[in-house]
Structure formats: structure tokens, C-alpha cells
């Protein structure tokens, strides 16, 4: 009881200090300095219409490579912690008739919608990460409906590795053609899509990188779900 009261008093003091600090940052006023430069030059530097995805992939592409690495380490860590020699699923209740029929009809459309999200990343909101998460949700639906369903684990791991290698290869080709790692060689050296801004075939190498990221994130999150659902069985 004493511990709870002490914790609540400490939290109220911390909250009061935070609120006093945030009173000096007025809400809703224009305080952009670097953002204004990015917004004015995004159409001629990158060819994308969506400013946020252009910043994530083109202006700050190296940080996105770091994020993909962190996701890969987390997925490997989950697989290493929960490893057993023989694993199988231990679900007992079969899904109802509505669930199995609905999932069989809906699964290709959910995968199609996820693919649409990451292909049009430079035109509409979204990008690679919500597209990959939607594909992983489609596989989660299949796990929920059928008791003995498993994803083909080997094929998914190989796809994930190849997508990661593809991202680094795109950067190395940029290093060979231009001067620095992740140089946008499609937009700036070859000059494809300069008269097509606002349509699908523009945006430099942003659709290529987002396709690779979408495939990688989708298969990685499905692998995490598969590892957490199986339990070790002793023979």
C-alpha cells in the first residue's frame, strides 16, 4: 500500500514537470526549418508525390536499412529462443464453418490489397511497412481458421534473405554509378519517368525498394507468428 502511494506521488511530480516543459512548445504554430526545404524540393529531386515516403526511402534511406536490420535481428532472436528439435501446433478447436469459408474466399484479396499498398507507396499513403503487415495478417487468418495449417518455413526464410540482399545490392549499384551508397540512379542518371510525375512509373527507385521491404516484412512477421504458435513435442 505504501509502495503504491509513493509511486503515484512520484508519477504526479514527473507529469507536472513534463507539462511545464511542454508549455513552451506552442501547439499548431509553424516551426518548420528543414521540413520546408524537403517539401519544396521533393518533386524535382525524387519524383515522388508523397513527401513522407520520399524522406524515409530517398533522403534518409540509410536509417531505413538500419530499421530492416533491427527487424531481422528480432525475428532471428524469437526463432533462436523458442527452438526445439520437433515442433507441432497444439490447437484443439477447429474453426467454425463461417470462419473457414470466409477465410478461403478472402485470402487472395487481402494479399492483393497488401501488394497494392506497397507498390503505390510513392503516390498514396502507406508504403512498405503497412503493406507487409497486411500480408502477415492474411497468413494469421489462415492460422486461425485451420488447425493443421503451417506456412512453408524453408521457402519463407529463403525469400526473406533474398529480399534483404536485394536492398543492399540496390545501394551498392548506386555506389558504383554515382558517388555514394544508395544514390538514386534511376531518377538521376538514367532519367526515367521525368514526365510522369503523379502516375505509377515515376519516383526513381522508391517502388523497387518498397517492394523488397514489403516482401521482407511480410514473411518475417509470419515467421514470428509461426514460431510462437508451435510447441515442442517430446518423443
Amino acid at each position: 500500500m505504501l509502495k503504491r502511494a509513493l509511486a503515484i506521488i512520484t508519477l504526479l511530480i514527473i507529469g507536472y514537470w513534463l507539462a511545464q516543459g511542454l508549455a513552451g512548445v506552442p501547439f499548431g504554430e509553424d516551426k518548420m526549418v528543414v521540413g520546408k526545404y524537403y517539401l519544396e524540393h521533393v518533386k524535382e529531386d525524387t519524383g515522388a508525390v508523397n513527401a513522407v515516403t520520399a524522406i524515409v526511402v530517398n533522403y534518409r534511406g540509410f536509417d531505413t536499412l538500419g530499421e530492416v536490420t533491427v527487424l531481422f535481428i528480432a525475428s532471428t532472436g524469437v526463432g533462436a529462443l523458442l527452438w526445439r528439435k520437433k515442433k507441432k501446433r497444439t490447437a484443439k478447436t477447429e474453426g467454425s464453418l463461417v470462419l473457414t469459408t470466409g477465410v478461403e474466399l478472402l485470402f487472395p484479396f487481402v494479399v492483393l490489397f497488401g501488394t497494392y499498398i506497397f507498390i503505390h507507396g510513392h503516390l498514396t499513403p502507406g508504403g512498405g511497412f503497412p503493406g507487409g503487415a497486411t500480408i502477415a495478417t492474411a497468413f494469421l487468418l489462415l492460422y486461425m481458421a485451420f488447425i493443421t495449417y503451417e506456412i512453408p518455413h524453408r521457402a519463407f526464410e529463403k525469400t526473406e534473405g533474398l529480399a534483404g540482399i536485394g536492398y543492399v545490392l540496390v545501394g551498392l549499384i548506386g555506389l558504383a554509378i554515382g558517388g555514394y551508397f544508395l544514390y538514386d540512379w534511376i531518377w538521376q542518371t538514367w532519367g526515367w519517368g521525368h514526365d510522369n510525375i503523379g502516375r505509377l512509373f515515376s519516383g526513381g527507385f522508391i517502388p523497387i525498394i518498397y517492394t523488397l521491404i514489403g516482401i521482407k516484412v511480410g514473411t518475417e512477421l509470419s515467421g514470428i507468428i509461426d514460431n510462437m504458435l508451435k510447441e515442442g513435442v517430446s518423443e
Partner: protein
Amino acid sequence: MNVPDISVYYFGAIALVLIGLYAVLVKKNVLKILIGLSIMETGVNLLLVSIGYVSGKSAPILSEGITASNAVDPIPQALVLTAIVIGVATTAMALSAAIILYEKYGTLNVEEIRRLRG
């Protein structure tokens, strides 16, 4: 003691951080502590996006009719896009560690685990 005058978005984000911190400090079940950690991350992301808001402007997608002086700040949104995905990755790894703890010690109470270890 004067009450500072902040907007409702700042107040909501600070309240989420404090509720998550209460769960980490006081609760004894390992899964409840991890739920509190995840709520704290949601609060911090909300605070970051609400600092970059400019009132009266619209989303930073420059289609027809929206010029560069009519959009909100795109940089905090790029930061938060990365932070959300990293948050779910670390939550998944921490939950796997909690499963291993349960299989080794038989309980999920942190004080019981401290007593059984020493």
C-alpha cells in the same frame, strides 16, 4: 501553483506515458509489465506527431491543389513510421523471453522468481 496551459493532445500523450510507467513500477506479473511498456511507446509516438502539427494545413501529399506551403511537417511522421515497427519487434522478443521464464521457473511472479533463483 499554476496549472500549465497545454493542448489536449499533449495531455493525452503524457497521461499514456504515466499510466505505462505505473504498470512497470508497481505490477508484479511479467506480462502486465510488458503491456505497460507497449502503452508507453504508443504515448511517445503520439507526442512526436503532435509536435509537428500546423493548424489549418493539410496532409503532406502534394497532389493537385496542395502546394509546399500548405502542408504539415513531414519529418516527425517519418521518425514515427520507423519507431512503431521497432516497437512491435522488441515487444515480440521480450514476450519470447517471458515464455522461456515460465517454462524454467513455473511462475510469472517477479518476487517468486527472485526467491527461487537465490
